[in-house]
């Protein structure tokens, strides 16, 4: 996801799940995606190294769109568009 640039998108909701271990961030993402409209984007902040692997799998399975993930200092920023 090297070509993913978050400055080109508009995030509707940021979920700060840093400090929560797996599956906390995934559960937070699931909750958050229900609070935005279809087509809107959530950003999940997670310090758990598995989240950037798990969120794309979750998104694919349930029908949302994983946009990409970028590393910040000590955590990851993960972006998903609600599609259903």
């Amino acid at each position: 996801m090297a070509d993913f640039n978050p400055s080109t998108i508009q995030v509707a909701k940021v979920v700060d799940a840093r400090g929560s271990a797996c599956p906390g961030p995934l559960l937070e993402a699931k909750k958050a995606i229900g609070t935005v409209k279809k087509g809107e984007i959530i950003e999940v902040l997670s310090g758990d190294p598995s989240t950037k692997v798990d969120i794309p799998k979750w998104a694919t399975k349930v029908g949302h769109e994983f946009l990409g993930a970028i590393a910040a200092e000590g955590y990851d920023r993960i972006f998903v568009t609600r599609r259903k």
Partner: protein
Amino acid sequence: MTGRMWIFCGSDEPQKAFPPFMLGSGALALDMEVNMFFTMNGLNIVKKGGAEKIKLPGAPKTLPEFIGIMREGGARMIACSAAFPIVGCKQEDLIAGVECGGVATFVSGAEEADVVLTFC
């Protein structure tokens, strides 16, 4: 729903009592149907006041919180009545929302399931 999971919860040891909920809540997030079957010492998880006593430092949530997530997500929680006399448990000792089932409940559920996990 995109798949059916049955989880055999046979222990109240924290490192065996928490993974069913960690994986089960994840499965709910992935839109799976989740069924949890509590038997033997696993029944202590769904006894009134039982989950509060089972603690796992470092886990993302407490066991009562996980039980709440499973309930909210529509998971079925089934207590194995075959183990009631073995661990000294009665139906009225169980927390709300837990139904009773027997061997056939688990076996028939497991036969139809896409995923079966056992923790004992």
